[in-house]
């Protein structure tokens, strides 16, 4: 039996050692906000926090999360439903289209801010490039992270 702390709740799961954290979150715990886009750590749609750091849950074996804290998109808004400033910033900047990559973008964006990688638009872009968005919402995603990080846009073009 493996014990996770998932979004603050203790969860006991009987695991096959081959199961990914993604398949356990999405496929067993019904935390559908964590998405599968590639299952190979290439797209970032399954990004969650493990002990406060961003990981791609498809490349994280579920047993590795034993006794550790997992945070998913479902735990980002406050209990009363108030959105986190980054979630609000995603809405304000229309930083999404189909929305499939959005939970992973937000989990990565939270980490990007916490890591201090918001010194300028180019730094944000670089540190958000593990999260693919096929609809092409990147301009809004950078603006949302900049807004939430409380910073103003730099004039760098990065070319």
């Amino acid at each position, binding site marked *: 039996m493996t014990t996770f702390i998932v979004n603050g709740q203790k969860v006991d799961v009987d695991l096959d050692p081959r199961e990914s954290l993604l398949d356990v979150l999405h496929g067993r715990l019904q935390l559908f906000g964590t998405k599968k886009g590639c299952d190979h750590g290439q797209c970032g749609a399954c990004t969650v926090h493990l002990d406060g750091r961003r990981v791609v849950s498809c490349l994280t074996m579920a047993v590795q999360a034993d006794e550790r804290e997992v945070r998913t*998109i479902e735990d980002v808004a406050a209990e009363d439903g108030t959105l986190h400033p980054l979630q609000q910033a995603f809405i304000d900047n229309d930083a999404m289209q*189909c929305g499939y990559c959005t939970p992973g973008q937000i989990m990565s964006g939270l980490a990007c801010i916490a890591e201090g990688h918001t010194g300028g638009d180019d730094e944000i872009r670089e540190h958000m490039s593990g999260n693919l968005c096929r609809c092409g919402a990147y301009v809004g995603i950078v603006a949302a992270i900049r807004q939430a990080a409380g910073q103003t846009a730099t004039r760098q073009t990065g070319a």
Partner: protein
Amino acid sequence: MNPTSTAQRVDAHAKVTGALRYGADRLPDDLAYAVFAVATIGKGRVVDIDTDAAHRVPGVHSVITRIDPDELRSPGFIMANGYGFQSLQPLVDDRVAYRGQPIALVLADTLLAAVEAAELVTATYEAEPIAVTLDDPGAETITQAEAIPIPMLADTITGDADAAFAAAPVQVDVELHGPAQHQVPMELISSVVEWRGDTLVVHEGTQNSGAIQNGVAQQLGIDPARVEVISPSVGGGFGQKNSLQPHIGPLAIAARRLGRPIKLVLTRPQTFHQASFRPASRQRVRLGADTSGRLLAAIHEIDQQTSRHDLFPGLYTEVSSRLYGIRDFRGRQRLVRTDVQTPGYMRAPFEHMSVHAIESAVDEIAYATGQDPVQIRLANDATADPVTGLPFSSRHVAECLRRGAERFGWAERDPQPRSMRASDGSLVGWGVAIGAYPGSVTPAIARLSVDATGTITVAVAGHEMGQGIRTAIARLVADDLGIDPTAIVISVGDTRHAPQHLTAGSWGTASALPAVHAALGRLRTELGLPATGALDLRAEVAAAGRSRVDVEAATVGAGQPTEPVVDRLRTGLVAIAGPEYPEFVTFSYIAHFVEVRVEPTTCRIRVPRVVSVADCGRVASPVTAASQVRGGVIWGIGATLREQSVVDTRYGGFLNSTMEEYPIPVNADVHRIDVDFVDQPDPLLNPMGVKGLGEVAMVGVSAAIGNAVFHATGTRFRRLPIHIEDVLASI
């Protein structure tokens, strides 16, 4: 805009909280899992298949290697009055038509067991020689107009282009190559399929729930009324989810045999081989002009890849013949049969490459005649449709060019190639191109219900794949009734609530909104209310002495016969009107201005700045529309500088079928994209004045980038994508 309208995307809250459910985001009780084993040859026959090891994996229930063709009939090809992305249904015989074709379906209690067992399925084959590129010896080239003799697919010919070209004092003759590419929507192709009594329920992210409903009914020989397809939100489609996928029929049969719901999620490499893609094409353009840059003749010849089992028709000359006011035009479209799954629609399926070819050639005419690239485009604008002689319902491409040039600062451009440099030594290039996309309309039925609490529910044909159709519908209803858009319940992509037509071709909003608009009129009539003005729906329903009011309206495209096309809508078949209507021709337009920088040592090409100005009629939803245009520009950047599905000429299939090796643009590839709209209502297409947007946004981007790369480097690159090594070799 009504002050009660909000600008935001109405499903944004559900998206940022992870609450929005996509097709396969569900775990019904007693769920079983399915995984495909696939062919490892490029073409031939399965001689023997060994499933013993797979059966021995604990938790495996069955391995289906063959389904009787009477139990699972062909879905038919969507472009030949059918439902499938291809006519070929895997698992019904021993033929292998392409690498990656399913040869077995494993059913197990867990995903792990199903994956493990599928890996253990082995087969012996009789392999045959393959042809997978346009130039492979076994590829068969046929003339489209002869192979599919229907008027829509005939070659566009006006005047005598060959004579006019021969006589033109300035001539450009170019051949451009577009690679096979894949749509790569973030949401994998996936389903949860279950039987509830005699009713088949399919949860799947699709752009065409009506085709799944009617197509799987045809395949299984059941009543379509006994099939429910539920697809309220799609995690991106881009054309790959536009029809019945060949896994649905086998899943329905497996679920019936097993008596359990079944979930299938294709792997990413499987989405490259079991669904459609943008076919490779070769485009030869001959443009003739006078010495002032006046375009006199165009000859546009296309060879486009198709499969052996279906003829995927090309519509390249529909747009290239209308981009400018050229009197003498000759098109010729040929199809090249290769050993692949049937290619299909990918955002701006024909227009992207067609316009890339024409707009690259126009840029060469501009340089050959010493004309400014913006001025030559303005000077050759069409005043009426050169193909039919009919007026355009609206055409503001000149305004797109003028406004874009102003915003971009085009006047500062030195036309001399290699003349502009950045402070870091990068070569700077500025390029321009226009784009156009046909304005089509499909039939739609809208149903409105208002209950005693005043809550309004809208059900209509349409699918939400991120383009914002839900938001556009909410804004229309909210503005009409003077209510909060977030309080409106909207059902799209759900065959239980309204018949569903394919949502593609940028016709979604322009087809759904007229039906909703008509239904709003019916609602006001039903309640005895004036045609306009804000309403208190709860009070009006009570005043009418009703507990609930239901109304329905059906709309069709201009000139479409109502009964037959609504019948097609109800049976899940495509029923498209336009861009030629009885009295006018409709296209959407755009102008793109692009700056590229070519780093002098590595020759890496970056796109720091794009200005795009679109004419999509009235803008139905400004926030989501601007996002769509930025997305289309990014698609153009990917298509020009990155994306190519590399084929394996020895063994078939696509070599780079992962998100690591098929390089869609990432965040660091994208910089400033400024978007503007002409925002002039189209006076003829529909009462809202709305034209399409999602695809025109991408059209012309690649030519603008290519033209900018020429301006930066002095070299024309005729093969997409433009790679670093191409530029290195030229400098």
